[in-house]
């Protein structure tokens, strides 16, 4: 699969500083869902995550003239992460969390994927599967069919479905190992 088409963030930042609302909309829609999922990993509350990301974008617009931004990505990522961590009330959990991400990857603290990057990564991985295996995998993980339902629909045994998914999984766990979320779920911090 060949893909092309990148966005020049410098151009976007310049347009933004010239009050271009359309560009603001574009940036918003490009990063919004990825950032919400990113915040959701930290605070485990989708609605609140949406509020956080929206307020970060409002701040971006209000401060646009004075911002010295290298990339929108690291600015947005850092802002969302910091606001999310602030929301964690339990100080002990917050400390452990901060320590955890420092240990994991001090250089890319603001790592998150947006929809396009993630879907591309997953598409490329799925593309590597043999056709039959891919079909079964898509039915299971994207159409949310139960193993038994897939077996019935394709007139094969449940074991065959599981074997095919296990093939898929062997490939996917190599292909998706670079998915760079750094956030540990809070439950893990609580119970470890």
């Amino acid at each position: 699969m060949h893909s092309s088409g990148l966005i020049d963030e410098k151009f976007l930042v310049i347009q933004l500083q010239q009050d271009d609302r359309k560009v603001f909309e574009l940036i918003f829609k490009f990063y919004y869902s990825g950032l919400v999922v990113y915040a959701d990993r930290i605070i485990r509350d989708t609605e609140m995550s949406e509020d956080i990301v929206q307020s970060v974008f409002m701040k971006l617009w209000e401060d646009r003239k004075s911002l010295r931004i290298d990339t929108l990505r690291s600015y947005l990522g850092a802002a969302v992460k910091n606001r999310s961590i602030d929301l964690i009330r339990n100080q002990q959990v917050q400390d452990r969390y901060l320590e955890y991400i420092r240990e994991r990857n001090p250089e890319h603290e603001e790592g998150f994927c947006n929809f396009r990057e993630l879907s591309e990564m997953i598409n490329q991985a799925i593309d590597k599967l043999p056709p039959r295996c891919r079909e079964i995998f898509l039915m299971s993980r994207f159409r949310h069919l139960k193993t038994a339902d897939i077996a019935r629909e394709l007139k094969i045994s449940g074991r065959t479905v599981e074997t095919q998914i296990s093939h898929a999984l062997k490939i996917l766990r190599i292909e998706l190992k670079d998915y760079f979320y750094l956030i540990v779920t809070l439950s893990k911090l609580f119970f470890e």
Partner: protein
Amino acid sequence: MKQIDEQHELLLVRYFLGELDDMEKTVLDRWLQESEENRRHFNAVKKAGEAISDLEKMKAINGNKAFQKVSLKLFGKDKSIVITLIRKIAAVLFLPLLIASAWFYLVQEKKSEIMSSVYQQTESPAGMRSSMVLPDGSMVWLNSGSRIRYPVYPGSTREVYIEGEVYFEVAKDPERPFIVHAGELNIEVTGTIFNCQSYPEDQVINTVLVEGTVKISQENGGRPILMEAGELVGFIKSEGKMTRSMTDPEKHIAWKSGKLMFRDDPMDVVIARLERWYNIDIQVVDKEIEHYAYTATFENETLDQVLRFLELSAPISYSVAEREQNPDGSLGKQKVKLYSQGGQKVRQ
């Protein structure tokens, strides 16, 4: 990494699918306690699963609605500012209003250009098939030598441009129709499953509807056709006309599962499919072959196996020529010649 035995591999699969029962959970836990290696395997599986559920979560998040909310807070009612402005101008003179709206229109045009120009193109090279999830959550499969151009932003329009054969499972969104531009045709849907075959070199654009509803119209007007499930609409490019018939959708979409399926199809259709599937040239030496109809299903067969099967099941024989070298040193397409078995005897 060391291989995992089949039993634990299946446990990982069932964990991944969320289908573990309590008993299996205990077994898996015990296995995870055993070694760091096992935990690494488990974490890789978990990560793959989380990547996919994150993608699904992102799909479910409505960026449009959120943006409306934010822009209302930041800009107030965007349009009303412009309208009051225009009204003020209109109060002075009618002519300036015209100019102002023309200007406003032009500026808006230019800005939406930035948004809609962020398109991405993906293609499946000749002889290969691929599939992907579009930013709006729709799934597409690209057959050999096909391409699709789609907007990068899930929030913008859902208009895609295709060449070649593409199978669509369109995500439901009644508010934003999904429009496929295929040659001179526009195919409009909200959430549905269909296949569209539109290779530039073909005389006909074929659309088969598997599920849902689809509206097909010609770019230059004419009455649109509302398709029903199980229907095949063929657009004959040279005549600018559409034909409708019922069909077995399965045979048109089998390709996406790696199957080549023919159901009483004339030889020219079979040949065109084989040429694309294997990226080869087929030459029919004895024209009477073209009258044969053919029924077969191939799954993951090599070209050689398919040709041999063809030879066994129909009065056809074939020869495969050496691949010629192009001037630039690359190899040309494989060339296959088909003979009628009767015809060949006459020549001998």
